[in-house]
């Protein structure tokens, strides 16, 4: 991709909030699950971007550049505000119960893009995410929303890889179970 030549003026920042504010806010809210904190992180992102505007070379879009800054803000927040790992996040502390189901709803085969844009699914999805313990939610978010490798997540959250795998397993199982009950199973009942 071409980079912005040195003599090109920096991007117009006067419409940034209008053009990118909601996208950044939604990105943050999905990851931190707190409206005030998400708003603060978006504000910090815009202020950092203004200070570092000369660093923007146009190799990416403004939106991608801003999202990159926000992503680092969220990780910094996790590092600075480490939370205590609960005993339920650790191996062998909780009796794992079997999670699989006898008869799956046809709703499981809907495409991710359709589900994300389904208002009722999105409400069930965000509600289920909010129900995860905070440490598990952070680990899950970094792994599944951001695709970070486990080693990096372990360092950010200050947990061992073994404990991280347990946290991720519990988060995935809880989210799957919650969605089964609140979305997929509901669809099966609706369809008789």
């Amino acid at each position: 991709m071409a980079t912005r030549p040195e003599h090109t003026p920096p991007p117009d920042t006067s419409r940034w909030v209008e053009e990118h504010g909601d996208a950044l806010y939604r990105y943050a809210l999905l990851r931190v699950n707190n409206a005030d904190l998400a708003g603060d992180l978006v504000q910090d992102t815009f202020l950092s971007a203004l200070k570092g505007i000369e660093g923007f070379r146009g190799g990416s879009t403004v939106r991608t550049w801003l999202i990159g800054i926000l992503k680092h803000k969220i990780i910094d927040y996790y590092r600075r505000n480490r939370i205590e790992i609960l005993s339920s996040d650790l191996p062998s502390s909780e009796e794992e119960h079997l999670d699989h189901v006898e008869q799956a709803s046809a709703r499981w085969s809907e495409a991710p893009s359709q589900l994300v844009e389904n208002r009722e699914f999105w409400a069930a999805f965000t509600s289920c995410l909010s129900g995860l313990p905070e440490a598990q939610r952070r680990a899950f978010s970094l792994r599944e929303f951001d695709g970070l490798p486990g080693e990096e997540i372990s360092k950010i959250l200050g947990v061992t890889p073994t404990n991280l795998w347990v946290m991720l397993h519990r988060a995935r199982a809880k989210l799957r179970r919650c969605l089964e009950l609140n979305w997929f199973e509901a669809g099966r009942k609706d369809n008789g």
Partner: protein
Amino acid sequence: MMNCRESERLLSERRDHALPWKKHLALRLHLFLCVLCRGYDAQLSAVLGVCHRAGAEASSHAPSLSAEQRRAIQDAMERERR
């Protein structure tokens, strides 16, 4: 013989790191024999597929900045520009 509880744990773990070959083979055998664990793995893939999609671009049904937050950000940016 691996049980379903162990299988579910490894179906998650194999998404994070390569399993030791003995566990990998035991899981393959279990999946071959257990339709419920195959179903569970497919459902996990469906849920995580939604997460990958949402992580790249949140739903248009997600909330927007409030008018108050928007104003506060614009004020802070204005102060920064001066």
